[in-house]
């Protein structure tokens, strides 16, 4: 790609970027939220037409690609919002658009036997141990991603673009993904890898190109740089590491939030109790599927609970629906923000103001007038606070970069000015610099006497912000560590301890 420029109404997303992909390498694309990474890749996949510049694919020169050009030239994209079709089986997903056929008399029919055989091979390659006829809706996020990769292989792609593939994966799933990526590399595929996690980049990348505000900063061999170099290249400054107060002691502090004996009928949460004290940030660690998000959903009233009591500042609170919870001063930044946080039809302002408007109204959130002034104020506050990159808060949210969309959703929950805030994966898709700002913000909220609960799959994140970390396993809190005693090893050990394995062994017998 040479001198690629892309202008959107109001913004120049890319100003003259040159980027190349070699066979058999992992080329990392790095940059702050809104730097233009996704846009550059969308030009390659034919979603956007470049304003100017050329694209050279295996000797052929293009001034713009259609999605079909892109596919025909062996490019596959694994978007962060996965595009598998839930209603189809794995094999149908892999071969949709180019189903294998066989002749049955005069007509061509789908050759399911061949399709299944072929699917099995591909799934083996990506290490997914599933029946090809399983419906995709029954798969976990990481399994769906594996299906996406298999799909790219089925199309015989030469270039695979992965836009933030690891944001929703656990560390073991990431390790698995990397194994597959290395395999693909060996087979001579070119891979573009976008991620905000520097550790991953150092591990998997061969070369790294840094973008900043749509301009090209530089390309380096990963082996020649340190993480700090990369941060300096993309942010232009260094970032500090920890956000706790030294020698903080919460034992005598007032309990501001308490959950007693929370149980869900589906067994995903079993008799969980915990307390949060003034000034403390409480984190929850555990494997995906250990029930942390389920617990938070049940506390917030978004999903039903069988039993359990919730106390906010010592007062028993009902919290049986999100509305009740919000009224009671609870907020929850949900994990799947696209599905449960986001209004694609609203601009930034409207997305942010939904919550405060609901909170300050009666009759199930229906009664009252919209105040344009208020709305403007709330939106501007959050824009400043979270450093949301946009030219106006009247801009549609879908026009923002992934990370900035995440920030808007964060802002929406912060705008409600709640007493207790649950952050489920707070920095998903957010760049290194902004992460630090969000951690500082969380600490500030806690210092102001607000309750901050954090669920995160990123152990460094929990270790950087939390004062106390509880480990979840199979719907129960199995261990709780003070920050000073906690290490990554201990947290991992607690979340995968023997008990789990024994159970699995039993069930296999």
């Amino acid at each position: 790609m040479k001198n690629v420029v892309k202008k959107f109404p109001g913004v120049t997303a890319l100003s003259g970027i040159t980027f190349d992909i070699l066979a058999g390498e992992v080329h990392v694309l790095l940059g702050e939220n809104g730097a233009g990474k996704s846009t550059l890749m969308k030009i390659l996949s034919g979603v956007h037409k470049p304003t100017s510049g050329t694209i050279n694919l295996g000797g052929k020169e293009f001034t713009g690609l259609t999605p079909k050009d892109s596919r025909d030239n062996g490019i596959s994209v694994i978007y962060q919002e996965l595009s598998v079709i839930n209603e189809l089986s794995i094999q149908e997903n892999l071969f949709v658009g180019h189903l294998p056929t066989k002749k049955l008399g005069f007509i061509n029919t789908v050759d399911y036997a061949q399709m299944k055989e072929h699917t099995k091979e591909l799934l083996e390659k990506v290490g997914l141990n599933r029946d090809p006829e399983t419906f995709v809706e029954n798969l976990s996020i990481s399994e769906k991603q594996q299906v996406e990769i298999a799909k790219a292989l089925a199309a015989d792609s030469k270039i695979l673009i992965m836009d933030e593939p690891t944001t929703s994966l656990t560390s073991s799933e990431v390790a698995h993904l990397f194994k597959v990526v290395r395999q693909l590399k060996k087979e001579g595929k070119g891979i573009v890898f976008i991620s905000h996690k520097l550790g991953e980049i150092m591990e998997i990348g061969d070369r790294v190109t840094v973008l900043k505000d749509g301009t090209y900063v530089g390309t380096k061999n990963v082996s020649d740089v340190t993480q700090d170099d990369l941060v300096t290249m993309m942010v232009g400054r260094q970032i500090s590491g920890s956000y706790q107060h030294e020698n903080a002691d919460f034992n005598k502090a007032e309990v501001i939030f308490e959950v007693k004996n929370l149980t869900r009928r589906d067994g995903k949460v079993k008799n969980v109790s915990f307390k949060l004290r003034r000034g403390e940030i409480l984190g929850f660690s555990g494997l995906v599927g250990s029930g942390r998000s389920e617990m938070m959903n049940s506390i917030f009233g978004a999903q039903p609970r069988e039993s359990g009591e919730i106390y906010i500042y010592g007062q028993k609170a009902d919290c049986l629906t999100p509305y009740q919870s919000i009224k009671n001063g609870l907020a929850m930044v949900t994990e799947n923000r696209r599905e449960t946080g986001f209004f694609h039809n609203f601009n930034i302002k409207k997305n942010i103001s939904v919550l405060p408007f609901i909170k300050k109204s009666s009759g199930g959130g229906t009664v009252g007038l919209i105040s344009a002034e208020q709305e403007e104020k709330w939106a501007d506050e959050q824009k400043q606070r979270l450093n949301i990159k946009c030219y106006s808060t009247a801009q549609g949210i879908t026009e923002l970069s992934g990370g900035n969309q995440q920030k808007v959703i964060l802002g929406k929950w912060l705008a409600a000015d709640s007493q207790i805030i649950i952050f489920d994966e707070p920095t998903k898709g957010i760049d290194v610099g902004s992460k630090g700002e969000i951690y500082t913000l969380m600490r500030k909220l806690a210092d102001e006497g607000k309750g901050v609960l954090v669920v995160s799959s990123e152990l460094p994140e929990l270790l950087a912000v939390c004062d106390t970390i509880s480990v979840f396993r199979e719907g129960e809190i199995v261990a709780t560590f003070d920050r000073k005693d906690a290490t990554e090893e201990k947290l991992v050990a607690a979340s995968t301890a023997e008990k789990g394995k024994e159970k699995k062994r039993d069930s296999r017998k």
Partner: protein
Amino acid sequence: MTAENKVKQNTLSFKQIWQRYGTLGILALLLVILAVLKPTYFFQSSTVTQILSQSSVNILIALGEFFAILIAGIDLSVGSVVALSGMFMAKLMVSGTTPVLAVLLGIFMGAMLGFLNGILVNSTGLHPFIITLGTQAIFRGVTLIISDSSAVFGFPAGFTKFMAQRIFYVPVAALIAFAVALVLAFLTKKTKLGRNIYALGGNKESAWYSGINVKLHMLIVFIISGICAGIAGVVLLGRVGSAEPAAATGFETYAIAAAIIGGTSFFGGKGKIFGVVMGGLIIGVINFGMNLLSVSSTLQQVVMGALIIGSVTLDRFVAAENRR
């Protein structure tokens, strides 16, 4: 942000211009075509009155339908609601109830029918398409039963006279439609209720997590649709002078068309009341124009269908091209 970015902000893209003035443009274009083709008939004082009075019923129904589509649903029962609430009103009037009370009760009937739709959608969890397809038949059936399959007429003179009035070329029917449109425009733009309905239409899950009472809002939407159909029933009674058991059959199609031509998204969450009124007027003008050009009624259907598909395709095409 650079200075360049700031400047660009003020210039509208083609897409934005199309979104804002597209329907108005189509309407103007249609009027010009008619004026050129039939100048002698077109430039009459009665033209405005006729177009407005023909469009009123459709605009009213479409205003309610708009909300049903806004939540990514649909209301196929509106035609039957017009008929049933109209029949109910007519029966009340001929049996001596004062027109004002009869009209109010008729509109209330519309609201109740909408309420029923809403309750059914909420309790079964089925798509509104299925529910309202069912209630469409049920409401029509009930209309036939209570009317004994025959028309009801002979309303008090006060009612027919009032409905036949016009204020400076504008018939009362149109005034009613515009008044309802104004109220609903206020609702969609300035109230939390309206904002929540858009939110719900955009993403139901997000709406639930944001504390919006999803079922309550769905219910309210169907009640609004029912009320609008009830008011349309009043207007239709006034225009026709009788309540027919088969009245307003198929009117849901025109209502849906008006909403969609007016820019309402079938996927929910997007659309404006102003657009719906424009959509209703466009359909009214097309109807009027085809009568003027003496297109046979059978051919009219074909033309109408083609125009609906054409205008919506054009709209989507323009939007898609601009996104790239």
